[in-house]
């Protein structure tokens, strides 16, 4: 006997999904998700989600990038081998700025993408939802709500009833 991962319900339109998400959120579930082929506007609020934490990674990356640029150029041109160019000072933040600026952007990009993957726990090539054949349409034209069995409020009968009442179709249990 395989473990139950959760209950899934399908929706055909974005308004139907949106209304159902409001109901699941208000019923007090926390371990649940919706699967959509594109980002649905306003769904984060309808699911009661917090604002994404990705910008923290971006800011950290940007600061590290800027400091790397400034300190590396100081080290290379003023410390490691002081370079005399036209009697100018060995180091000035002015001439180090363009490279530091580019490194700020480079490191921000890496940190942003790394942050996105980390927060999303990706790559994750094995997932119960990816095994279920009906989810082919989640990346095409259908919308799903999944309530996980690990949710403290999860009860097979009640959860199914909630999804039915919210207008969910093809309600099914998904194996772990």
């Amino acid at each position, binding site marked *: 006997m395989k473990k139950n991962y959760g209950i899934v319900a399908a929706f055909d339109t974005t308004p139907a999904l949106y209304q159902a998400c409001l109901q699941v959120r208000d019923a007090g579930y926390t371990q649940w998700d919706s699967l959509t082929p594109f980002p649905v506007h306003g769904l984060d609020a309808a699911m009661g989600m917090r604002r994404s934490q990705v910008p923290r990674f971006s800011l950290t990356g940007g600061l590290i990038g800027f400091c790397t640029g400034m300190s590396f150029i100081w080290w290379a041109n003023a410390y490691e081998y002081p370079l005399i160019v036209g009697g100018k000072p060995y180091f000035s933040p002015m001439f180090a700025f*363009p490279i530091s600026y580019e490194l700020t952007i480079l490191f921000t990009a890496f940190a942003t993408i790394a942050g996105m993957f980390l927060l*999303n726990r990706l790559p994750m090539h094995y997932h119960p939802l990816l095994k279920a054949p009906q989810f082919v349409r989640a*990346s*095409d034209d259908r919308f799903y709500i999944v309530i996980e069995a690990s949710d403290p409020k999860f009860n097979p009968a009640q959860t199914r009833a909630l999804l039915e009442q919210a207008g969910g179709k093809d309600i099914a249990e998904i194996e772990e």
Partner: protein
Amino acid sequence: MSAHSTDHTAQPAILAEVNPAIIPRAVLVEQNRDFHWITEKVCGIVEGTTPTWWWWCFGLAAVIASFTVSGLVYLVSTGVGVWGHANPVNWAWDIVNFVFWIGIGHAGTLISAILCLLRQKWRTSINRAAEAMTIFAVICAAIFPVFHVGRIWFAVMPGWLFPFPNSNGIWQNFRSPLEWDVFAVSTYGTVSVLFWYVGLIPDLGTMRDRFTATGNMLKARIYGFFAMGWRGSNRHWSNYEMAYLVLAGIATPLVLSVHTIVSFDFAVSLIPGWHTTIFPPYFVAGAIFSGFGMVMTLMLPLRAVYRLEDLITQYHIDCMCKITLATGTMVGYAYSMEFFIAWYSSNPYEGFAFINRAFGHYAWAYWIMIGCNVITPQFFWFKSVRENTTLVWILSIFVNVGMWFERFVIIVTSLARDFLPSSWGYYSPSIVEIFTFFGTFGVFSFLFLLFIRFVPIMPMSEVKAVIPAADPHAGHHH
């Protein structure tokens, strides 16, 4: 007037209710296509059998690309003398082609990043292909600075391009705009690839799911590997969209800085005709102008061949034409302002440099540039021109030609006639240079053809999000 203002009992000057005229929004996907149609249309291009024309074009592109390969092999095995550079024009063909290609890339980033921040939804159906164009253009651009050092391994060790110390342990002079350029272009290339890949992830997930459903497990594995296990979870979308927004937010200053730094290669020097403060904005406008020229050169045939008229609508073409017109006019303004400043500065060298550009030995190149860059885009004022796809395509070719000549004019005329008349000269490219440049169009087409064959050419998830059915409030906004 006075009688009207003193009469307080008359009708109020302010309307009780304002009823602004409702201007219908342009439809971004025509014929009311649904989600599934978009998936079928875009995936169908990749899943279908390889068209015959594709093989012909691919073969032709490979043959043309071989010119670059042979030119570069000959250069590395013989020495930089095979290029036609000689005193006083020691720097010409390679930098002209570098700036030309890197400029083309800029439209891709403008479409994907700047238009994203400005919430221009029409960007969705063209941004994937435009970003691919950016990446391939940066590859073509990078060939020239890497190979102009001759012994290409010297680009890394002892650091003729990349920051490594030479055999005496001396590091690069980081005051040099050429060193800034290395950082700008390599950052630009890297961030463009990352941005493009992040945009691709959901669509690769769609491809994986479709290949899984049809039982093609090998392709499902390959696309699935790059899709990173994407499953369309809204908790993922939330972070994904934030990451995409941040990337757009940093790619915007990046694209502006890249061509600014490219212009510093010239503006920071003291050569008459280069040493001007107008260069950064003028180069950025020119880059976007040339890039949109190339986007139209690529997208219009693609639209016709794959019957994408419902996704790349007349509205999209209108928008691209208008941006070309706006940036082309900015470029024209910059040309005239350069002349004005040359006169106003009363600097005889500066004045001579510009008179010489328009009426000297390279006047032919100057007037090709003016014709293609200043006059061509003015046709886009007319709706009848913008609606004639063939004509738009032909005009876009003129834009590409004109922008190549712009770089040629700026670089070659200024160097050929510098401060000392005794060192004046006339530069002509050698056959090796001509072949090497000609071949880059093959390199570019080769990569672009691979792209349209194996990668969804439109971001399905983004196009789906802009059709009316995507609105969770079904048009009733709160």
